[in-house]
């Protein structure tokens, strides 16, 4: 835990403007498509075809192919929705909040964290729509003038979700794209291939790098960061309202909003590390994504994990303190009911194991960090499973108790979205600069024009 007074650098010494640009842009422009990339993308693409198959069959037969039924009407679909949207939180947190907090170490991980956010939100968005039963009527969720006298129930948090998630998706996309523009221009200028020049040129929207361009760019970027900041909190807050607004034990508890947000950032950083660690290894980017990034991300995980632990503790305590028989039963059911195994697994993977992050050595060890991040992602998935399924399967009426078993279609859809997510990530790594070139250049000693 002891820390030296000068932390590890965010970028290893010896780089200049030119070498940074070369190193990052060459991954996209000159480096040949490796066999490893082809294999990885191929597998991910195949798995995402499984998603297509599962969704196709769902359209044909309806949600009956899933394990959802009364009493558990919200099965894998909602569990996965919350899990994915949570993962999507790290991107905006890193790019917007850390930007406003002037944490320059973010510069080397913000680009792919934002890309990850977009793909995670895309995966998340699929689930509620598929869960509708008639996905082709999803546009009914929006309030638009129509002759059917259909109007959304604005007191329902499910409607707020539509707005929260679609706003989040839009702003994240804009933020990511605006941040990409100067780098797209770099790719345009450096590309030898006519086709690539045209495509990157169109995407760069005429960026010339003039002082006026930069001034406007900075303003736009800061404004978008300001807009994105409340969204980091609002999206998962609204997701938590989906549960907390009801009166079901285990759902109706006031701590849900901050507890969900902390959990989202927790799992988001776990996913960032799970991606960053292999990427920096395969592409030799250890100089740009340094131990400092691993250490800082691990600290964020530790802190948010403790907030999540506080949430568990407070919820359990209040269940006992209130003396409410339904709340007490929920606690009992979690600890001794049919899903108790998963609850203990959740406690181990979400609360116990991450405490090893107090040890500095593990915070900077890529191997262990990768492993712990994986455990956290499993733990956070289990948390949503416990919240959704355990509360629903035994509610107030004993006569309506039941069990929930996911079917192979549930699994196929879930695993399929992971494939889709990874396939998108592979494409992103191959086609766009995964690290912000010009923001990295600002971290170099060369960039310090005036000595303050």
């Amino acid at each position: 835990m002891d820390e030296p007074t000068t932390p590890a650098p965010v970028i290893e010494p010896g780089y200049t403007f030119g070498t940074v640009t070369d190193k990052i842009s060459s991954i996209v422009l000159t480096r040949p498509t490796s066999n490893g990339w082809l294999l990885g993308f191929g597998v991910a693409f195949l798995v995402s075809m499984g998603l297509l198959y599962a969704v196709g069959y769902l359209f044909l037969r309806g949600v009956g192919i899933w394990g959802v039924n009364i009493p558990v009407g919200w099965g894998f679909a909602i569990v996965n929705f919350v899990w994915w949207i949570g993962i999507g939180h790290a991107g905006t947190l890193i790019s917007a909040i850390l930007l406003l907090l002037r944490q320059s170490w973010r510069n080397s991980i913000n680009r792919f964290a934002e890309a990850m956010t977009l793909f995670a939100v895309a995966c998340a968005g699929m689930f509620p729509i598929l869960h509708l039963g008639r996905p082709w009527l999803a546009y009914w969720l929006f309030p638009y003038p129509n002759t059917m006298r259909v109007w959304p129930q604005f007191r329902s948090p499910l409607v707020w979700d539509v707005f929260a998630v679609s706003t989040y998706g839009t702003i994240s996309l804009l933020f990511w794209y605006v941040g990409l523009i100067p780098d797209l221009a770099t790719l345009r200028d450096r590309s030898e291939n006519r086709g690539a020049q045209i495509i990157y040129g169109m995407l760069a929207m005429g960026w010339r790098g003039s002082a006026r361009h930069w001034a406007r760019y900075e303003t736009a970027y800061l404004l978008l960061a300001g807009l994105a900041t409340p969204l980091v909190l609002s999206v998962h807050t609204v997701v938590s309202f989906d549960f907390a607004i009801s009166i079901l034990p285990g759902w109706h508890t006031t701590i849900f909003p901050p507890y969900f947000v902390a959990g989202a950032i927790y799992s988001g950083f776990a996913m960032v590390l799970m991606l960053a660690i292999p990427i920096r290894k395969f592409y030799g980017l250890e100089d740009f994504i340094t131990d400092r990034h691993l250490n800082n991300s691990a600290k964020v995980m530790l802190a948010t994990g403790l907030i999540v632990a506080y949430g568990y503790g407070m919820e359990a305590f209040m269940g006992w303190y209130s003396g409410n028989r339904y709340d007490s039963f929920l606690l009992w059911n979690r600890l001794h009911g049919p899903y108790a195994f998963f609850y203990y697994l959740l406690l181990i993977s979400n609360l116990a194991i991450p405490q090893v992050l107090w040890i500095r050595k593990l915070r900077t060890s890529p191997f262990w960090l990768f492993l712990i991040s994986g455990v956290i992602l499993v733990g956070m998935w289990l948390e949503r499973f416990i919240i959704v399924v355990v509360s629903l399967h035994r509610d107030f009426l004993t006569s309506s108790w039941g069990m929930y078993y996911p079917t192979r279609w549930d699994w196929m859809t879930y695993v399929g979205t992971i494939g889709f997510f990874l396939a998108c990530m592979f494409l992103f790594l191959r086609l766009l600069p995964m690290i912000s070139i010009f923001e990295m250049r600002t971290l170099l000693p060369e960039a310090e024009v005036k000595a303050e």
Partner: protein
Amino acid sequence: MSAARVNNLDLMAPPVVKVIQRRMVILGGVASVIVIVGAFIQPAVFFRAYLINFMDWLGICLGSMAILMLRHLTKGGWGMIIRRILGAAMRTLPLLALLFIPILFALPRLYPWARPLESIADNHLQEHLRDITRSYLSLHGFILRAVLYFAVWGALVFLLTKWSYEQDRPPLRDNSSRFKVLSGPGIILYAFTISFAAIDWTMSLDPSWISTIYPLIILIGELLSALCFAVLVERILADYKPMSELLKPEYVHDHGKFMLTFIMVWAYFSFSQWLIIWAGNLPEEITWYMKRLNGGWGFVGLALVLFHFTVPFVLLLSRPFKRDVTRLVWLAVWLLIMHYVDLFWIVEPNFSANFTVTWADVSVPLAMGGLWLAYFCRNLSSIPLVPAYDVFATEVLEPVHE
């Protein structure tokens, strides 16, 4: 070079602190006499106000401790400049431990669970209390837990203070890593202890009501009031050396940003609690808000929405406002008052169905505040305002270049 003099700058607190201290002793003393007389005439009224004030001043003390630990973890000039102010506020803990004792003598007056069960008219409540007083809200448990909380806080204050003193005199030793090692677990300990203290001391005034976010609302209120208090002290000191040489607009700007963050978090927590309870509309929960939205209390609630959040939020969006301590201080004072109103709104409706302000709500703040502030001033003037030998102090000790 003595510890108190760096760059030809006397780092001890200016004489004005002593003047304030003397005035506060007089104010606190006179008000205390009135309050003690009043307490014998109307003990019920007195103890309610006493509890609110105890929570308010305790909040500034503990909030200062928490911000101080946050500073040790994150560094930055914003924290170094107010470090010793926070430290002086934190070291008022012994006084607050002393002030807690009278509450123990008024438990049945304040807390329904401390009364004989037979005296409770409501059957459901009586049944509930029969269970809860056996398990958690027992007299012994209440006292034991209070001792535990004060022991934890006392230990944290002791260590933070001891290591800070060490940095004032040679031999030079860098305590920043020790501070860091303590502060991580320290913040966690603070969060857990203040949560349960909030449940014990204020939430249990209505023993059938629960809200899992409630302790966090108390916690964020403590951070906010502690920061606002530090800004107030910083403003007073800014007219005199050494603070006039050291305080830079950037630090004030950061303090303003913290104020903005804290009021937003306060609003976020408070609104979440309200929305979830309103939507659930369960009899054991909504009654808490029914009491606080009727009988004139609704206006207090509305005032909190407007003046604890909306207006300060709009003001704090302005960059020049945040950078100017002479303007920011007014908002800090205002928020200190609003925090008191918030606690008043949380505690008082448990006792009176209609909005009332009594003599105690005016005089107890003067009495307790006077004594607390005098103690604070004594703490503040006892050691230099900046720990000159801290390795990170040099950044702050650079004089302002105009």
